[in-house]
């Protein structure tokens, strides 16, 4: 169902011990998944990957409504993280292609028809797009899994339906974008026009290629902007497929241009382009800093950024341990741990600490890791060799710095980028694994005594993206909710990503909010219009 929450997986896991069964049994019947697979899947399943039931159709750049080769003629391979094998060679955009795409977007914005169309017409196109995604759900899901390594059932049952849901949500905004009439201190008539900002540059990450596509493209289109989107070089395929459907739905040429390529050669020229009016980026904090600098050095384009995190998940002493363990587990391990909101610091009250660690370890050992195309698989390979190596380095550092390795700690099998679900206990705040964003299946469990202490420690980070609070006590929930310096607090749940819920960071986790009504602000300019009133009947 289109409106299923992204992580109904997680909320269901609270009530059902065989967690993923609840999720995957909805819709088409994929029979009893995780029950059969205990512990890690066998190496054999990893050594002999399933052939994806799908053929790659679009590998070129999408500029002005046409699929074209890169100006340089160059291409780059996109790899299957299950094997490291090449899936396809994809046109590699650089500065020249960005220039062409920006020119097309500029023309589509300045001359139309997109911003000049009625909101109702724009809405209808986006709604048709949503219907087309629904129709191609399984194809898109297969492409997403193939390129990124995430479980197919997660792609097909959660993420692609969520893409549909998000596009419908934004379609509904198109005809409800309101300026204000504003009170004045004298005889003036004042109103604000909420105008589209213009040509928007967007860069999406590889962990949720289609969902990030929706978070970026949805509000920009609803507000009447035109777009140049650069996808992550690890996962360029699904956005090209989706963008093609959007054109099939009636999107005029030039409104959405998609450039595959690398950060330094395609992302940087987009961020520093003088004809781009606005920039939006999701990715690492380090790259966010570069992007912000490029924007300020060029035309001072406003930038929204959704960056890294090291989000605390706080288990209070009154918590139901079994539920808390399951929720903390999925808060971290969901999507191979490759979530900016991952609950990567699990703080557990000392009274329940030992039991919690024991059960978390048991849960991690039970996690079904294997070929993401297989039924019942909870965890696929990491997205790339670079990520794989980086995570293994962090694990090594955790061991060396004296944290207790409870489970995992090494790769799984000999092929692809699989890592065993890893749990560290006795993690101290000054260890590297406690401070850095690892972006992998590595859970760190900390012990705390009282609320003030855990608030202080949870906030002692450069990041501020999200937090989880697990307690039945209303006052504790309220205290923690207000005290944590983060953009999202999940109380007794985690990773609930509805279309209407804004997401974004405090501190170095970014600027601005995506999703919800707040996301529209990123893509609108406010123009105040003032004119004197002669002899007004009232003020």
């Amino acid at each position, binding site marked *: 169902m289109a409106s299923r929450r992204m992580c109904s997986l997680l909320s269901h896991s609270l009530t059902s011990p065989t967690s993923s069964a609840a999720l995957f049994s909805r819709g088409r019947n994929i029979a009893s998944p995780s029950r059969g697979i205990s512990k890690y899947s066998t190496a054999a399943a990893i050594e002999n990957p399933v052939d994806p039931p799908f053929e790659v159709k679009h590998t070129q750049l999408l500029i002005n409504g046409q699929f074209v080769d890169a100006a340089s003629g160059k291409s780059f391979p996109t790899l299957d993280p299950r094997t490291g094998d090449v899936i396809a060679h994809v046109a590699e955009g650089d500065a020249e292609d960005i220039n062409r795409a920006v020119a097309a977007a500029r023309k589509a914005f300045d001359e139309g028809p997109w911003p000049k169309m009625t909101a109702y017409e724009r809405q209808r196109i986006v709604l048709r797009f949503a219907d087309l995604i629904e129709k191609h759900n399984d194809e898109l899901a297969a492409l997403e899994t193939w390129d990124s390594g995430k479980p197919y059932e997660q792609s097909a049952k959660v993420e692609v339906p969520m893409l549909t849901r998000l596009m419908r949500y934004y379609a509904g905004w198109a005809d409800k974008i309101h300026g204000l009439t504003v009170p004045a201190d004298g005889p003036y008539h004042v109103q604000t026009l909420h105008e589209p900002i213009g040509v928007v540059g967007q860069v999406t990450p590889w962990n949720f290629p289609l969902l990030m596509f929706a978070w970026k493209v949805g509000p920009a289109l609803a507000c009447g902007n035109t777009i140049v989107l650069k996808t992550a070089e690890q996962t360029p395929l699904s956005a090209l497929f989706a963008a093609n459907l959007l054109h099939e739905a009636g999107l005029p040429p030039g409104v959405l241009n998609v450039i595959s390529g690398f950060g330094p050669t395609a992302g940087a020229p987009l961020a520093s382009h003088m004809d781009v009016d606005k920039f939006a980026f999701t990715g690492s904090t380090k790259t966010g800093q570069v992007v912000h600098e490029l924007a300020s050095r060029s035309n001072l384009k406003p930038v929204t950024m959704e960056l890294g995190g090291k989000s605390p998940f706080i288990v209070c002493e009154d918590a139901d341990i079994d539920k808390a363990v399951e929720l903390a587990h999925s808060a971290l391990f969901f999507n191979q741990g490759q979530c900016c909101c991952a609950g990567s610091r699990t703080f557990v009250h000392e009274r329940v600490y030992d039991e919690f660690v024991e059960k978390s370890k048991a849960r991690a050992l039970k996690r079904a890791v294997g070929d993401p195309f297989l039924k019942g698989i909870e965890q696929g390979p990491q997205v790339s060799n670079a990520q794989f190596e980086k995570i293994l380095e962090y694990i090594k550092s955790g061991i060396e710095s004296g944290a207790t390795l409870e489970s995992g700690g090494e790769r799984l099998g000999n092929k692809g980028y699989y890592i065993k679900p890893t749990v560290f206990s006795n993690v101290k705040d000054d260890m590297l694994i406690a401070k850095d964003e690892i972006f992998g299946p590595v859970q760190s469990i900390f012990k705390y005594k009282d609320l003030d202490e855990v608030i202080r420690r949870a906030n002692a980070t450069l990041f501020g993206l999200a937090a989880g609070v697990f307690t039945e006590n209303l006052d504790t929930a309220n*205290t923690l909710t207000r005290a944590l310096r983060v953009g999202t607090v999940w109380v007794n749940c985690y990773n609930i990503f509805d279309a209407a819920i804004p997401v974004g960071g405090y501190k170095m986790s970014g600027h601005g909010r995506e999703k919800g009504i707040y996301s529209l602000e990123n893509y609108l300019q406010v123009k105040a219009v003032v004119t004197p009133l002669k002899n*007004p009947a009232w003020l």
Partner: protein
Amino acid sequence: MASQNSDDSSASILVKNPTIKFTKLFINGEFVDSISGKTFETIDPRTGEVIAKIAEGDKEDVDLAVKAARQAFDHGTWPRLPGSERGRIMMKFADLIEENAEELAALETIDGGKLFSMNKAMDIPQAASSLRYYAGAADKIHGEVLKMSRELHGYTLQEPIGVVGHIIPWNFPSIMFSLKVSPALAAGCTMVVKPAEQTPLTALFYAHLAKLAGIPNGVLNVVSGLGSTAGSAISSHMDIDAVSFTGSTEVGRKILQAAAASNLKVVSLELGGKSPLIIFDDADVDMAADLALFGILYNKGEICVASSRVYVQEGIYEELVKKLVEKAKAWVVGDPFDPKVQQGPQVDKKQFEKILSYIEHGKREGATLLTGGKPLGEKGYFIEPTIFAEVKEEMLITKDEIFGPVMALAKFKTIEEAIKRANNTRYGLAAGIVTKDLNVANTVSRSIRAGTIWINCYFAFDNDIPFGGYKMSGFGKDFGLEALHKYLQVKSVVTPLYNTPWL
């Protein structure tokens, strides 16, 4: 004025004689006879002939419908679905309306005498488009988190108000149906709709489509019937939480009284109007004449916002009058199925006679009849486009809502005079201004006590524009997000905070 007779032998004969599929009450997802077994006739205003006998709902039927709606609200899925899922079902409902546009347009024409081409191009697509607008709003209903002056956490919940009664008029049966039903559905309410007894056909068809779209049983009930019985039962029902009415000021008052005397249910009223159109000296005369004429003749003058009082500044008065009369004479009245026709018959005999009696009044009161003033043809309820000039403020045709193709035209000198005369009415639904002068436009806009001001346009409705009256034209808005809030109520939730880092 030209008259046009339709050619019944044309190929479109099937379109013109749609089969009447739905004549019973729609209660709890089923079409049922009325408990009394009674029916009433719905008439084709082109001929005065009976189209069909329709089940006549009475108090007992309203009780059944309210019971179903109550059950659907208190225990059913509808208010408990995520807004996004309600929106999906409403989108489907809109698609089904579009798929059946031709048939719905024809029903609307035979039942209400409305232009078939207009129904197809405007009324039916608008019914779909309102559903889509509110479908898109269903997942965007936000409460607020509040700023407290003490250590408290406070927030508001926007909750569906409950069971709603909608009483809708006969002049725009499809648009009014969608206008009332869509925001209430989006809010999560359940409802009982009473269509006007003159035009019950499309509302019953919509009930059928709603079921096909997946709206659960009991959420949307349609009880056709008369105002004095079914309408009155709705407005005085103890289990209905809100009633929304569009119709005359006279009936609006009765509804408000019934609501007050029963359970103090929330009431919104969209009532009559006597809307002024003010044309200033600097106006483009041709454009102004077109607007003025369209403002009164559109939908045979059966529209609550009709520009029934036209005030023209003295400098262009003569020229404008000349153009108005020319254009009125060229206006084509005839069979509403004929694409060349601009005006069909009035909705029924009662309206027809009422309008003619106002015309007689105008003549007796001493207004100058510039054109029209008579019925047209032998059969049906056709009336010539009629313009009275030199009307005085105290004349009945200047004060009363006629609801027909009758314009009251007057001359004015200054902007102050125009404002004063425009406001000299108990109504306040809408007003039009024709001028190129920004200051005039702004001053007049703020000075006129009416719910909608159209500057250099008229009838510019849109899903996003709230619409409703000042003064005795009613209260509460249709259209826009304002309308959604008619069907929501605010609950404040407060709890203490301890040791909070900020307030």
